[in-house]
């Protein structure tokens, strides 16, 4: 595929790899915030080609993984109400909540539908005027504008049966919380490419400035990640901490102003609960009062009961970068992608699922 396969060319990678080896002298720990980057790094064996000076750490950037059980339980409770269709992206179906998953209750007869796009959810609402259709809105700034767009579509089409349960999360506040906690020490941050396509690379300026950590926005192909590591190494060796872009074809300093405008038109920041990290101020998105009639939290009386965390699962520690999946006793034993105990084993970008799939590339 054009503008995709070129960035997977192993022959082209050789030059940048040897440049990294030549430049890297100081031991450095880099965190890839995004689970998509973890997947690229393990799939293509990037850790193995890097010099021993560089340590890579996975971060909390998997929206499925950080969704709190309380929010999952709400979606499950909604799907169990008569006359309700719950729609969401495929990744969410298998994630275990406190007592069940969307997939399990679907098998038991609940109307849960996987969609590829929020436009599909809008079509389902149009085709089922006697049902109430709830879209479980999950994702970071990459996805939130598409959910905002669906609410604007629903308004323009005078749809009275479309609702969103917003569990959207914002990336800069969680990185700030992570760094402020002092739990992890970083020498560089691989910033998320598609979040930055929307919010722009400038959104990371505060990290470089306030925490003196080099930041480089990366794309998701192996060459993108290698270029990003090379730029981070260069900053480390030169004693710099600035924000750079290793994904210039997709990311601009100002992001996508129209996507940001729609997101802010429909949503406003709110506190959000993150798995493993507790509640972080202004790190979530809720519907503005102007769009309250589309808000599932307001339209339905949702009572999912008390939450329960999966026994023995250390997803929270993994998301904070203080443990790896190999530290979990359940990993690969009672927890597998077919029968996941925690969300990190479900999502294709969850650390546990990625380690399970590409285990041979995970060690160092």
């Amino acid at each position, binding site marked *: 595929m054009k*503008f995709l396969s070129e960035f997977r060319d192993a022959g082209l990678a050789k030059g940048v790899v040897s440049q990294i080896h030549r430049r890297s002298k100081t031991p450095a720990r880099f965190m890839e915030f995004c689970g998509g980057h973890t997947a690229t790094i393990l799939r293509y064996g990037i850790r193995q080609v890097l010099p021993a000076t560089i340590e890579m750490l996975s971060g909390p950037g998997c929206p499925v993984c950080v969704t709190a059980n309380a929010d999952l339980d709400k979606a499950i409770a909604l799907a169990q109400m008569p006359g309700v269709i719950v729609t969401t992206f495929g990744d969410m179906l298998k994630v275990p909540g406190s007592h069940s998953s969307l997939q399990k209750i679907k098998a038991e007869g609940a109307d849960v539908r996987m969609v590829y796009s929020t436009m599909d959810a809008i079509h389902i609402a149009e085709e089922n005027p006697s049902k109430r259709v709830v879209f479980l809105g999950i994702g970071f700034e990459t996805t939130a504008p598409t959910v905002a767009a669906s609410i604007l579509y629903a308004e323009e089409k005078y749809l009275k049966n479309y609702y969103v349960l917003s569990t959207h999360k914002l990336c800069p506040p969680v990185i700030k919380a992570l760094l402020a906690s002092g739990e992890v020490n970083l020498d560089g941050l691989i910033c998320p490419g598609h979040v930055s396509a929307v919010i722009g690379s400038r959104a990371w300026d505060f990290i470089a400035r306030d925490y003196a950590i080099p930041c480089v926005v990366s794309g998701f192909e192996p060459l993108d990640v290698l270029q990003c590591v090379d730029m981070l190494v260069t900053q480390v060796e030169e004693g710099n901490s600035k924000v750079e872009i290793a994904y210039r074809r997709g990311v601009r300093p100002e992001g996508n102003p129209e996507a940001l405008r729609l997101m802010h038109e429909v949503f406003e920041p709110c506190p959000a609960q993150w798995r493993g990290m507790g509640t972080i101020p202004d790190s979530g998105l809720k519907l503005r009062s102007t769009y309250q009639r589309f808000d599932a939290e307001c339209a339905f009386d949702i009572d999912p009961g008390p939450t329960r965390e999966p026994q023995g699962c250390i997803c929270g520690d993994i998301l904070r970068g203080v443990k790896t999946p190999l530290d979990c006793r359940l990993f690969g034993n009672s927890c597998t992608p077919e029968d996941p105990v925690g969300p990190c084993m479900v999502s294709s970008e969850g650390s546990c699922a990625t380690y399970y799939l590409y285990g041979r590339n995970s060690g160092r």
Partner: protein
Amino acid sequence: MCLAIPALIESIKNEEADVDMGGITRRISLRLTPQAKVGDYVIVHTGYAINILDQHEARETLKLFEQLAKAAEEER
């Protein structure tokens, strides 16, 4: 979850476009990139173009990789 891939816009009608994604035609929304034109590559995430791909920057980045690869080859 934040998976997004480049696709070529083949035609546009109202706010929607038919794009070529590696040989498969898909209908996507241009609501987030109203300035996109036929012939542009857009980065598609869950049925929406979230940005227009900068083809010039893509080629520049590839050129850089080529130069580095060549330099590494000559060093041997």
